[in-house]
């Protein structure tokens, strides 16, 4: 797999998981490009570095594995106007005209009118990075894209169809077709990030079905990354008891008393109510997991990092992805 597209419902952890995946992929000396396409500088924030210019910058080194040093992770924030200039320069030798067009706001105008054209510039950049070679070797062993959310991913990746609605023939159409062939190649996979809540899970299932649908034929769905998972604090039997309100509160109170807590009876009542809520949450988590299983894709479990995300947490998620063989 060389191009990893990471999508998911807003806020479920697309940027975080894309970054962790890039780190995981870079773990045995391989060079990885992590790119974002929504102009939010999410990667810079995550790696705690200044905003990324339109250029590929090294932001991190993957974890070392045994004798092998970690590989480099480069990052790029793609911008449609810059991508357009690059495209003009590369294919038409028209960089100057492009600059003039930008000044007049043409690119902004056209891509606003027709987001399909903007998308083809963004996915085009990913396709270019995937195919780029130095001598006979690929420059990047893998490219990870922090992609738009599930609601827009189908259109975003279906560039050829989106563009063909606007341009039946012509150069842009040809470009879109090339990009499409990279996106639909067996070397590309679309991963879904979700949390175990009803709406994100539903969006994941809908998204998987949409990409699998004929209209998107050939798009390969990759893994489902279950993010921010919480571990149960009780055994299954206790969870059930807590859920049914049959938890042994006398035993609970005795335990509290043994720990030197006064007022253990009333505390036990409160804690039992908390446990019941916890049990309910765990039960919902389980049923959402079962729903995800129906999608029939590999699933990877990523824990909730309790004290908020930082670099250490990111490496921890990368480690999980390695261990579960997502990378």
């Amino acid at each position: 797999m060389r191009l990893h597209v990471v999508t998911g419902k807003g806020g479920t952890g697309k940027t975080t998981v894309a970054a962790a995946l890039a780190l995981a992929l870079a773990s045995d000396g391989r060079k990885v490009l992590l790119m974002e396409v929504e102009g939010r500088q999410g990667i810079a924030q995550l790696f705690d570095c200044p905003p990324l210019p339109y250029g590929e910058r090294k932001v991190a080194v993957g974890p070392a594995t045994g004798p092998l040093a970690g590989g480099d992770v480069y990052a790029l924030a793609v911008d449609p106007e810059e991508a357009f200039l690059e495209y003009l320069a590369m294919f038409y030798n028209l960089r100057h005209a492009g600059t003039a067009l930008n000044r007049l706001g043409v690119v902004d105008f056209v891509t606003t009118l027709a987001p399909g054209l903007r998308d083809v510039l963004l996915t085009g950049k990913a396709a270019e990075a995937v195919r780029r070679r130095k001598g006979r070797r690929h420059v990047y062993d893998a490219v990870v894209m922090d992609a738009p959310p599930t609601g827009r991913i189908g259109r975003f990746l279906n560039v050829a169809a989106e563009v063909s609605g606007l341009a039946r023939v012509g150069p842009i159409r040809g470009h879109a077709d090339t990009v499409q062939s990279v996106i639909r190649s067996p070397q590309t996979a679309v991963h879904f990030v979700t949390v175990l809540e009803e709406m994100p899970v539903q969006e994941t299932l809908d998204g998987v079905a949409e990409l699998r649908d004929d209209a998107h034929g050939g798009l390969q769905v990759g893994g489902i990354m279950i993010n921010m998972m919480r571990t149960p604090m009780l055994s299954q039997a206790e969870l059930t008891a807590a859920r049914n309100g049959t938890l042994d509160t006398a035993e609970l109170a005795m335990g509290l008393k043994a720990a030197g807590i006064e007022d253990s009876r009333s505390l036990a009542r409160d804690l039992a109510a908390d446990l019941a809520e916890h049990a309910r949450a765990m039960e919902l988590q389980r049923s959402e997991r079962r729903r995800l299983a129906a999608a029939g894709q590999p699933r990877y479990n990523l824990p909730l990092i309790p004290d908020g995300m930082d670099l250490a947490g990111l490496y921890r998620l990368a480690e999980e992805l390695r261990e579960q063989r997502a990378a």
Partner: protein
Amino acid sequence: MSSGQPDTDFGQAEADGGVPAEADAGVPAEDRARPGKNRADQPAATRPNRYRWLDVDRLADDPRTRVIVCCGSGGVGKTTVAAAVGLRAAERGRHVVVLTVDPARRLAQSMGLTTLDNTPRPVQGADTTAGGSLHAMMLDMKRTFDEIVEAHSDPDRATQILANPFYQSLSSSFAGTQEYMAMEKLGQLRRAEEWDLIVVDTPPSRNALDFLDAPQRLGRFLDGRLIRILTGSAKVGGRAYLRVLNTGFSIITGVLTRVLGAQVLKDVQTFVTALDTMFGGFRERADSTYRLLQTPGTAFLVIAAPEPDALREASYFVERLSRDRMPLAGLIVNRVHRARAARMSAARSLAAAETLQNGNGEGGPPSGASAARYPLAEAALRLHAERMLLATRERRLAEHFVAAHPAVPVAEIPARPEDVHDLDGLREIGMSLADEDSPA
């Protein structure tokens, strides 16, 4: 975070709950208590100190409140809160319509919103004994846009526009079309004068400000210089200006033809020309709805999750509302976590759990034994510690907001273990909003 402007500048945030201070004079106390207080068995209150409570009932009961706009960043609960506030206001006697955007499927079904038909439908199951009523509708963005086009151009031209590929792309995916159409629909509902309270949900955008900015962005876009260049309708200015335009024009058409193909450029031009007659109308409509939002009958509820990003967005939004003299009612912090036994600190609870784990508890096995005697109590103590830490973190975040915006009233809604997808769930959300001690 600072707007450079004192918070006392808030139009209505200064008056209680966004409505004039004498507002509750006409509302009998027993009415205000309906449909009932919160259940007693909920977690104890541990909320930020020294802030003003946002009394949503008082706001929604006041007949002068005609529009409530629920806004905030993505996924914080705008749709849920809009539906809950609408339901509660209706059950307390007002004639309410809730305009939702993209509700979760099950919530939509429970409100009887099964088709996207752009018309308000009565919600079955709302209690109308207090004399109120509840309607709800889902925004159909494309259809609303089509209707504007039809209303503003003759039939031939309308057909031409509706069939144009660029119109189809713009009307279904322009970032901002949804916001514009939500505003447009709000304007329509308001003019219809059929309801005495309109509760508006705002589109799922990442950025809370999009709702305010997008309509004007669309208006500006459709009215822009470039569009005028393309339509050849830029007739102002002297020679030099024209020459620049002409050079610009030939570069543009030259490059675009080469890159996009002649057909695409022609489609853009036809589209733009066809829309030309409507530009004025677009702008005017966007402006008039914007002004409607500034009137005293409108109240903004800013929704946030107790998380840094959401609260930061809420801060920006509050500052922006203040700058634009929009009537802010207050902040609702949704999905707040609380521990029931707040009297026991996280540290104490963890220490107790450690004691049990090490088998050091009174009456437990001798020190050093590996098996813990009270696994249940230990788990309960660890869970409690976790909840206390989370509650503390959330409270600190809310306190930051309050410190920066002391004049903004705040209300909280506890996190429920499960999603909200029926009227009962909405009612409970409404109840917790109505209770100053909630989540309590």
